[in-house]
């Protein structure tokens, strides 16, 4: 006896729908692809063949959603920031990813990927981390699942992010310093990729942002798409409409931005604003504003916009926020930028710090400095009085206390 089976849809929705989504070959417009050495091919190919199938499996979705609810604490609130709205003369909502377990949006992706790793039969996890947020989120889910965890972190970042290094160790992860190159996030990513080359059979690499070879950008985006899925439901309840006028998110590699934008990509009436770190200023030589300073190239396995010399050497970005100083952006974002679908803005260190402190005083929320970049746009961007603007508050500021203390002489 056969019963008609409803076509299973993967987390985040059906594949290949909409012009801003990934193509079957792994491209967003001209960006994306999988530019990887042959040594990585079997692992990446296995993932490419399986990820949508796994993400469509009802038992996988159920497990993912259950953990997001009971362990992460989702749905995260959509909070109407009343005093901030009054100050800027528009209607500002904050999507409170800072209230997630481990303090940022990163955990949405690591929960998804650890379940994926288990389905693929892997028992060892590696990850890269810059500020340590993704490292902590990875170490957390590895503890949860009882899996071995190695986190690569630039030697310089290890020195300046000591509390997160301690957290990872407490959670049972091994933190390995990346000693090569500039000894920051990009080098930690190189080291993680090398580890994967050396351990091709038992290891899954949990990439923390919407970057890397296809299918990583799409897989990470789908796991993070719970953010925009919830915004639509919550806004309907509060405002009687699913679509805001604008969604705003900060962008380094771009995972919180990808999740915040995802369900609005094809809703042309929703304005999309991505906020990059200008560092000490776009022309200062110390910046991470990839859309302005970058050119098309290949970084960590994908074709995207990245900061590089004329000779094609990848340059070192700078931002006061360790989560935004990546020399590239995810390929989906490069496409959103060049196609004009998204507006890119850049915010300096000083502007971001000021906006972060302002949120503390106006709303009683200490934001991560990454998220403060998104909050800072209101100073120079005018919105209509009745506009609904949803800002992703991607993480909380506990990890940044020392930076706030130093900056403001607190």
């Amino acid at each position, binding site marked *: 006896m056969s019963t008609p089976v409803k076509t299973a849809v993967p987390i985040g929705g059906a594949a290949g729908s909409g012009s801003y989504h990934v193509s079957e070959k792994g491209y967003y417009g001209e960006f994306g*692809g*999988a*530019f*990887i*050495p*042959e*040594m990585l*091919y*079997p692992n990446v190919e296995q993932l490419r063949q399986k990820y949508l199938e796994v993400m469509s499996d009802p038992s996988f979705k159920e497990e993912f959603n259950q953990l997001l609810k009971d362990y992460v604490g989702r749905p995260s609130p959509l909070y109407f920031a009343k005093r901030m709205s009054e100050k800027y003369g528009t209607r500002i909502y904050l999507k409170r990813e800072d209230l997630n377990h481990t303090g940022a949006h990163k955990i949405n992706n690591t929960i998804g990927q650890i379940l994926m790793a288990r389905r693929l039969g892997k028992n060892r996890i590696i990850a890269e981390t810059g500020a340590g947020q993704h490292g902590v989120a990875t170490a957390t889910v590895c503890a949860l699942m009882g899996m071995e965890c190695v986190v690569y972190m630039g030697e310089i970042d290890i020195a300046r992010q000591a509390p997160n290094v301690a957290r990872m160790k407490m959670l049972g992860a091994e933190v390995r310093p990346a*000693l*090569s*190159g500039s000894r920051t996030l*990009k*080098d930690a990513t*190189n080291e993680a*990729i*090398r580890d994967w*080359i*050396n*351990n*091709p*059979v038992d290891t899954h690499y949990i990439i923390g942002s919407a970057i890397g070879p296809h299918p990583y950008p799409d897989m990470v985006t789908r796991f993070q798409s719970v953010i925009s899925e919830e915004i639509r439901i919550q806004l309907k309840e509060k405002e009687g409409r699913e679509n805001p006028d604008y969604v705003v998110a900060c962008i380094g590699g771009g995972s919180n931005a990808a999740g915040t934008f995802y369900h609005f990509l094809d809703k042309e009436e929703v304005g999309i604003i991505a906020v990059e770190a200008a560092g000490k200023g776009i022309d200062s030589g110390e910046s991470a504003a990839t859309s302005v300073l970058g*050119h*098309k*190239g*290949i*970084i*960590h*396995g994908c074709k995207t916009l990245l900061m*590089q010399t*004329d*000779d*094609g*050497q*990848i*340059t070192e970005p700078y931002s006061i926020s360790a989560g935004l100083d990546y020399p590239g952006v995810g390929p989906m974002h490069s496409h959103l930028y060049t196609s004009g679908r998204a507006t890119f803005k850049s915010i300096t260190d000083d502007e971001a710090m000021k906006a972060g402190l302002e949120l503390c005083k106006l709303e009683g929320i200490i934001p991560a400095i990454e998220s403060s970049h998104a909050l800072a746009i209101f100073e120079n961007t005018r919105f209509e009085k009745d506009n609904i603007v949803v800002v992703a508050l991607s993480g909380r500021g506990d990890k940044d206390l020392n930076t706030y203390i130093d900056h403001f002489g607190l």
Partner: protein
Amino acid sequence: MTTNRIHQKLREDKKILSIYFTAGYPDLEDTVPIIENLQESGVDMIEIGLPFSDPLADGPTIQESSTRALKNGMTTTRLFKQLENIRETVHIPLIIMGYFNPIMQYGVENFCSRCAETGIDGLIIPDLPVDVYEEEYKSLFEKYGLANIFLITPQTPNERVRFIDSVSDGFIYMVSSASVTGAKNTFGAIQKQYFERIHNLRLKNPQIVGFGISNEDTFLAATELAKGAIIGSAFIKFLNEKGKERIPEFVNSIR
């Protein structure tokens, strides 16, 4: 199918010793003297590494040499300038090994055309996947008579090895084990099985083994079934410790 120095060399009845070094290392202007010295010492083929800031498939030795070469001021333009008259003195096959981003920024066609003018015979671009090559760049490489060399690993299934063989022209670069460059000292049972598996496929392109070859023993083990072997990290270490004047000593220690 191109006919260049690589094909001629591979037709010779001998095991091929190929040496990799990073252009512009240890000193910026060492590129040409090292090539000449290697030829003089009896090396069959040379891979010239175009340094890159983020060499994913390489271990620490080659990464450090790249970082140093870049600090010395090495660029793609500079390399072609250094190699301008190389064919007046050097007749063995020369291959450039580099990551795709610097080549893309130089312009792929521009790069291929400069290679042809200079007398470069082939390219190894580890992060240019075979399917992208076939779709977008194969005709360009053929136009300029460049052999493109692809990698296979112990994890590459037979079907894909055959596909890579069908797209390759020159030789197949057999990565000896699941590792980045410079990682191993000896070959175990798994490597031997892998060497046999590939040998038994009777591919149209000869195979040259790379990664983990550091001395006479590993060279002999690697070339038992394969046509030749490539030494990289061990040579760079030697250069760093002993200097380019003593290159013949290194080559003589291998065979």
